[in-house]
């Protein structure tokens, strides 16, 4: 049953590539987030094929469980504004830049392809990539970076809070059309604009 591994790899690889294409090409960011989710699941499957069981689990928990949900949360918070109107300005320069990047990477791949020998990796002792083996490596060799990464996450939480919250007491900017802006989650509610200000404000006060 040698071909099972091959079929598994090619199915996961096809899903990953198609989902990545859907992520970068979809006009609606919600569809992009769904493509990202699919690609993450496919890459987790590829991790399983590479004997990285713990990383596959971490991939599913952190990416699919946290990162994609965060993306979806922000997209839904922005609402229809997450899809800006179509605008063709500067599309030529961007396309040229993208093509340059892609051709560089693919030229590197072609140069590399002559040297690939496709030797099968040797068989492993049991336990490679398992939670116990990975945890042993993480808490012996990589203990200091592990602790530093916890500090990084703490700083990221504080930074995200400080950036997303805005200044205290700052009123939300008001659109020319009279729509109240995206209100900062501050202690005081953002004042409503327009004729309804007095009534609403009075009732709230």
């Amino acid at each position, binding site marked *: 049953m040698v071909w099972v591994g091959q079929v598994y790899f090619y199915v996961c690889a096809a899903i990953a590539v198609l989902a990545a294409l859907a992520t970068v090409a979809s006009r609606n960011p919600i569809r992009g987030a769904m493509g990202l989710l699919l690609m993450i699941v496919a*890459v987790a499957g590829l991790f399983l094929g590479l*004997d990285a069981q713990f990383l596959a689990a971490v*991939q599913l928990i952190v990416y699919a469980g946290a990162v994609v949900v965060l993306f979806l949360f922000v997209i839904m918070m922005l609402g229809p504004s997450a899809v800006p109107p179509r605008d063709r300005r500067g599309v030529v320069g961007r396309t040229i830049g993208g093509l340059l990047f892609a051709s560089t990477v693919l030229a590197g*791949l072609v140069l590399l392809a002559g040297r690939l020998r496709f030797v099968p990796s040797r068989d492993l002792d049991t336990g490679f990539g398992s939670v116990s083996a990975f945890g042993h490596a993480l808490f012996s060799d990589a203990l200091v970076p592990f602790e530093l990464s916890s500090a990084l996450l703490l700083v990221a939480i504080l930074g995200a809070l400080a950036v*997303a919250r805005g200044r205290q007491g700052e009123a939300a900017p008001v659109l020319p059309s009279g729509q109240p802006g995206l209100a900062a989650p501050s202690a005081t509610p953002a004042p409503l604009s327009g004729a309804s200000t007095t009534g609403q404000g009075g009732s709230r006060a």
Partner: protein
Amino acid sequence: MITSDHYIILSTVLFAIGGVGFLVRRNVLVALMSLEVMLNAVNLALVAFNRARPVDHAGQVFAFFIIAAEAAEVAVGLAIVLSLFRIKRSVRTDDADLLKN
């Protein structure tokens, strides 16, 4: 027989797709998602290299730290997107020109 080289090729293709998306797309959210695609490709390459040389877990540990750094990057990046949206009412990258002039 699937070898590590297959995974390296796939990782290169994914990296190219993500890079093109990051350069071409103008929606900040889609650009951030393309960044995720690129980092996933790098993780795949690291794990594949680790499988090709399985004397220790260095590649997997490195991929683990990339995942941690990326979670932080997404949190701060989306906070910046929200902040930009509050100021400019837009999620386009070329509207982020507050430092111009």
